[in-house]
């Protein structure tokens, strides 16, 4: 199995999701690039320009050394899925296989889904999951300490929101044809943010019942199974 690069979703970098942890336990090498903002670190200012933002992801991935042995399998969730799709479309030579877990990037104005940014910060996480907020997510920035933890949460929210505001549409439908590598698209059947019907705009895929927007946390067995088969 190729090295896997995982771009986490709208909650920021909470480490390996349970689904990916299963693959890691089986021996897969999974790298999570340390993307500014998504790690909650102080001093973050998002690039104003979308291309500049993409370049941040590219630069961090390049600098990580993960491409030393050639292309990688790229897994992106939510906002990370949007970026993963962009990378596969614009730098196809570095992506061997692409897994998209409920990616942003294409919106349906007639059914825009729940507006996560029209609730206050502490209430947001509950809307990402069908089975409750996992402890690992709730405590994802606890290592910053009690005073700085809420600031880290806010900064991670800024990072994601700066890429998604206001509809999460970056016109990816115009670049999808550039994705030449094998692609797996999975979607949570109870995704509040992005209606599962959007999966058709991505060329189809599998809707997993019982999962919310961050499906790799809600239904780890189903996601791990599908990804394992796809990457084998």
């Amino acid at each position, binding site marked *: 199995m190729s090295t896997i690069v995982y771009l986490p979703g709208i909650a920021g970098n909470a480490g390996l999701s349970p689904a990916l942890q299963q693959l890691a336990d089986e021996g897969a090498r999974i790298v999570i690039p340390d993307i500014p903002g998504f790690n909650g670190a102080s001093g973050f200012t998002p690039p104003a320009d979308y291309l500049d933002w993409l370049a941040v992801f590219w630069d961090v991935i390049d600098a990580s050394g993960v491409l030393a042995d050639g292309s990688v399998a790229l897994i992106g969730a939510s906002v990370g899925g949007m970026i993963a799709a962009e990378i596969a479309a614009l730098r196809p030579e570095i992506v061997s296989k692409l897994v998209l877990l409920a990616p942003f990037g294409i919106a349906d104005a007639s059914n825009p889904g729940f507006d996560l940014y*029209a609730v*206050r*910060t502490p*209430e947001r996480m509950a809307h990402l999951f069908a089975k409750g907020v996992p402890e690992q997510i709730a405590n994802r920035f606890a290592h910053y300490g009690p*005073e700085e933890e809420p*600031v880290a949460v806010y900064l991670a929210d800024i990072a994601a*929101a700066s890429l998604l*505001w*206001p509809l999460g549409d970056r016109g990816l439908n115009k670049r999808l044809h550039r994705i030449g590598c094998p692609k797996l698209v999975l979607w949570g059947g109870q995704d509040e943010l992005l209606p599962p019907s959007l999966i058709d705009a991505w060329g189809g895929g599998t809707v997993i019942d019982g999962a919310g927007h961050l499906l790799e946390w809600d239904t780890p067995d189903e996601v791990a199974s599908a990804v394992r088969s796809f990457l084998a």
Partner: protein
Amino acid sequence: MKMMWFHFMPYPALPDDFNKKHRSVWVDIDPALFDRDILAESYDTYIDQLVYAEECGFDAICINEHHNNGYGMMPSPNLIAAVLANRTSKAAITVLGNSVALYNPPVRVAEEFAMIDLFSRGRLIAGFPVGTSMDTCYSYGVNPSQLRPKYYEGIDLIRKAWTSTEPFAYNGEFNKHRYVNPVPRPFQKPHPPIWIPGGGSIETWDFCAENDYVYGALTYYGHKFVRETVGGYWNRVEAHGKDYNPNRLAVTQFVGVADTDAEAYKLYKEPAEYFFNRSLHVYPGFTDPPGYVTEASVRARYKSAVRAAARAKQAAHDLTWDEMVENGYVVIGSPDTVREQLEAAAKDLNVGNLCAILHFGNMSNELVRYNTKLFGEKVAPDLKPMFGEWDHHWWPSGADTTSPEVSA
């Protein structure tokens, strides 16, 4: 001290059960609530009230910009300002202001403000608010993390557009122009005074102090609540080595004057309750878009118990009239009572520009005029001499209200 008459232009006929049946007065308010005849008549009445304020001796009349809003019907304050420029002759026309990041390109603001300044022969105060999250991020879809950079760049572009003596190119992050050359330039030279309305962000305090702009502490909650904000601002003024000229600061305050304290308590209860418990019925989810405030401000936010308490109170919709009065949200009473309270507050805050809100909620036109006349005749004259020892470097050169002529 400058006496300024501030109008929000609220829609005056939200139903009694508005709070129960609707989640927000702002952003996604039900358009079916608005009656076109009430809207049209309200504009006429409100403009007349602003004109009347000049007749009553107010130094300035003030308007602002809101979008998708049931308590502020001025998505384009410049349209109102154009009318006021034509119908008044002495008062400063204070537009607080144009939310620069919403205009593409901001050169449009330079052009329209220049026109208003010319219409009024140099009476414009040019306000540049960042804009509330409800107006900018939700109603106009501006990416919250880009709002402030766009705003700062927009002001920079506008200032250059106003003061350049020849066409120029501008290569900003958000604005790229080969030819900036607005016709007309403003009446006032080098440009109208710039005031920055704000809600308490640290970066706005620094921006004002660094650039010698007036800071407008726009609050709904009166002089007691705003002490923390004003204190923070003056600290930054001091840190930047600037003087304590009170004219660097403007503060909003709801005021209700009557012949007696008891009469004021009776007269202003309903319109105040309408405003605080209906017009401010804002869905909290529209107040916290990620990136709207900077890291420094969000860190400070968690330490501000005063603000947290006020927000909690507002969210609960349980403000009573006595609380509004006791906490200074509304200063009411006889002319003597109001004058004493405002004088003490002005000294406490060191504020040289009082933006008095004498129309609020669903107040009748008769009561607005009564309030305005009493204030103009029996409150303002004793307050105007305050801080007279300081020069006002931020007042429009064409404004003059030295000889009020009050009609009935």
